[in-house]
């Protein structure tokens, strides 16, 4: 892989912090995490992550460095997720909500969890409710909500990744938070 990418575009790949293997190593977790948050389905998230890097590899020549490589990858991921949704080939959310995966694995990894079983159950419930509410958001709001609260991206980075203006991102983020809170209150 390294040789092939280096042959393809040595300057660009090197300038952005190494080779394609390094790119995968550094940004694969981020892309997978965002896809998982969006789809709530690990297999589908894996597929989207793979498609994202394939697309990145094939269009590396077209990368004009108008943003960071990381933001460019997120841009590709956002487009892929939108296309999947639009094509309706996958009913990810519906399916994954019907068979939610157990939370224990992740819970154990969250730092500082020394909670009582009751507090832990409450936290699980809250997390599940936020995720469920995020899944019901319109695509654009969901994307922005997840980029902000899962990926910790700032408004400018989100604007670049989504191709929207900063003010539009701000408005969508506000709407997303309000919708999530409303849904949680309605569900409580």
């Amino acid at each position, binding site marked *: *892989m390294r040789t*092939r990418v280096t042959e393809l575009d040595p300057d660009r790949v090197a300038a952005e912090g190494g080779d394609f*293997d390094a790119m*995968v*190593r550094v940004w*694969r*977790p981020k892309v*997978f*995490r965002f896809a*998982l*948050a969006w789809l709530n389905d*690990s297999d589908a*998230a*894996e597929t989207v992550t*793979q498609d994202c*890097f*394939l697309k990145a*590899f*094939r269009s590396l020549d077209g990368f004009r460095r108008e943003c960071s490589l990381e933001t460019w990858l997120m841009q590709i991921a956002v487009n892929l997720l939108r296309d999947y949704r639009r094509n309706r080939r996958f009913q990810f959310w519906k399916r994954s909500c019907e068979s939610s*995966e157990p*939370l224990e*694995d*992740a*819970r154990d*990894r*969250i*730092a500082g969890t020394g909670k009582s079983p009751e507090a832990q159950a409450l*936290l699980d419930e*809250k*997390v599940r409710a*936020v*995720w469920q509410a*995020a899944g019901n958001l319109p695509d654009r709001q969901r994307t922005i909500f997840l980029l*902000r*609260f*899962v990926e*910790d991206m700032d*408004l400018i980075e989100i604007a670049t990744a989504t191709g929207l203006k900063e003010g539009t991102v*701000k408005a969508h*983020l*506000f709407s*997303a*938070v*309000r919708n*999530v*809170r409303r849904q*949680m209150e309605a569900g409580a």
Partner: protein
Amino acid sequence: MTRHFDEDEICRWVAGERDAECEAHLAGCAACRAEVEHAGQAVSQFGDFVRARSASLMKASDSEWSQRLQGLVAPEHTKPAKHGRIWVLGPVAASVAICLSLGWCSLNHVKPTSVAGAVAAESADAELLRRVDAEVSRTIPGPMEPLTKLVDTQSGGQ
């Protein structure tokens, strides 16, 4: 600001829209502070949870994953590039066009239009006419044959 935060102001705060007036109010209002902390905590815990969960769900190692990706990328690289295809398809298209035009010419008996071709065709016609004349001459009756030979000799001598 003397009143408590309303729902929109809480949402704005959680979304990151913060101004000095809101900050000043929060500094002095425990109720609003508790409210925005609770709201912010819900989304931040969600973020923590997704990050932890994705780490536990990433099945293949980076090297395995890279190898798989390489396997998917490799067949693409064996195909000719788009601009390369033009060089392959161009001559093929030209050959087909030439064959078609030649076929059309032969079917429609199109004569060559060049000057050299026209001269050659004209001399061939004259030769053919001469041979026909000779054949016709040979079909004259027998008594006239010596005279015909004499005419042939005279025309050959000219």
